[in-house]
């Protein structure tokens, strides 16, 4: 059980509510080679059972992370993964190299699926050639675990996942947000400064579940499922669909302690069903 990038800050935002060591790990905010101010306000619109965001990868850049944030997060008694984003292949490579030098970061999650910046990686994540180019280039320089976060804004996510696997990904996580839009009819204006944004929350769960199921059948590497998980039952559904692990995202905003509740809930489920290893649930869907 991991907490999803962009929903958990750098972990410190949640330490009043939970003990981070109860989690499998946290994935910190999307990090880019150079600092980014992100998009203009407004960046968020609530939607039925979900929300749209257009944050736009606001972060202080990888050098700031290495110097100021890593010393703190490396003390956490949990695994800390860094979500790496970029506009060009060279940016991804340079950023991944800098994170590789950090002993306490066991893996990166390559974000080839941010829908909120013009060249925020989604351009790479929506074609097999694009994802192969960026994953292949990062694979050459990054020798720890390379997780690749997939965009749902594609026709066949299984094809994209297979391209990532062929290019050297160690695992894939999915789904990133779905491209969406919200309009204020009274004002005849979009609710987001960027007009479109990324949809997340409970409303995307059926889509995410379907995509995890399709991808898990198509690749041999582990699949990490996310998209609308807010309970242990949700998480177990993703495992049954073929995920080896899950991430919790938007639900952290609604209940800052939800991640630990999900972990406990999975333990209860396993006890009730006399399951010794959670891993036996992966792909155990009976059709």
């Amino acid at each position, binding site marked *: 059980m991991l907490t999803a990038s962009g929903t958990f800050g750098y972990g410190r935002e949640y330490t009043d509510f939970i003990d981070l060591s109860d989690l499998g790990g946290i994935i910190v905010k999307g990090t880019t080679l150079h600092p980014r101010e992100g998009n203009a306000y407004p960046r968020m619109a609530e939607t039925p059972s979900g929300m749209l965001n257009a944050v736009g990868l606001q972060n202080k850049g990888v050098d700031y992370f290495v110097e100021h944030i890593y010393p703190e997060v490396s003390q956490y008694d949990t695994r800390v993964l860094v979500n790496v984003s970029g506009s060009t292949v060279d940016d991804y490579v340079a950023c991944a190299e800098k994170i590789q030098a950090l002993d306490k970061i066991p893996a990166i999650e390559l974000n080839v699926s941010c829908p909120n910046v013009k060249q925020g990686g989604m351009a790479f994540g929506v074609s097999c050639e694009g994802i192969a180019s960026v994953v292949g280039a990062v694979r050459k320089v990054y020798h720890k675990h390379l997780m690749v976060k997939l965009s749902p804004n594609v026709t066949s996510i299984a094809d994209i996942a297979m391209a990532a696997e062929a290019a050297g990904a160690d695992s894939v996580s999915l789904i990133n947000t779905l491209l969406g839009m919200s309009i204020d009819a009274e004002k005849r204006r979009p609710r987001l400064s960027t007009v479109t944004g990324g949809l997340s929350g409970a409303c995307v769960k059926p889509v995410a579940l379907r995509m995890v199921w399709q991808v898990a059948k198509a690749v041999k590497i582990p699949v990490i499922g996310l998209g609308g998980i807010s309970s242990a039952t949700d998480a177990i559904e993703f495992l049954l669909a073929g995920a080896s692990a899950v991430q919790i995202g*938007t639900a952290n905003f609604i209940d800052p302690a939800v991640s630990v509740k999900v972990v406990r809930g999975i333990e209860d489920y396993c006890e009730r069903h006399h399951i010794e290893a959670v891993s036996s649930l992966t792909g155990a869907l009976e059709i």
Partner: protein
Amino acid sequence: MTKRIIDLRLVEKREWPQAVLLKLRSDVEPLPEAAPGQFVQVRVDQSPATYLRRPISIHFIDRERRELWLLVRKVGAGTRAMADWPLQTRVNVVFPLGHPYTLPKASKKERCLLVGGGIGLAPLLYLGKMLHEQGHHPMFLLGGRSADDLIQLNEFEQYGELCLTTEDGSAGIKGLVTAHPVLQGPSPDRIYCCGPKPMMVAVARYARQKGLWCEVSLENTMACGIGACLCCVEDTVEGHRCVCQEGPVFNINQLKWQI
């Protein structure tokens, strides 16, 4: 101040045409420490229309009774649902959140003008109480569209003098808060403000012209309330800053408003 997730019980409610006062009591534990200007994130219910929590200012804290008071303007699905809660409803809140108003040093007795517009008067009650307790001299300048907006006046009166304005003239001076003659009198040492943005900009402009210290409280749309999602940012002289974490209270010199 440690943030907590806590269940409270609705013990008292008072309703006006545009707003509702909710008194929430902690039955089992003392309320967490909180300062004026901070806010809480309220879980409304699990209906599709109220998926996220609602950020609401702390109106008042009655430590003896373990009560948190929220003054809520009924504007959308979430706040209307809150107004409909029956007494005894269990209410889940996360608090205290955000950066509070800056209180003057207790050693120096200061004259403070607390300017509230519409539901923006909510955080000023607890602020006025704390200023009063520390021996300062709060004065409330409260404005609304009509007398219906000027609520909780009996409470405000306990801590300082009231100056009122309404746009329709149904109470106090007719006009906006900036039309009130108190602003033509001796300058206060500090101005604290909360209300609609045009009103806060006007008050900030007044403060800037007079060279007065002034803090305002913003209400940008939020998701997490704890500085994690970066949705509620305000453009400041230091770049984008989270209103939920580095605000909601900002000194006007931090903001890039055209004032």
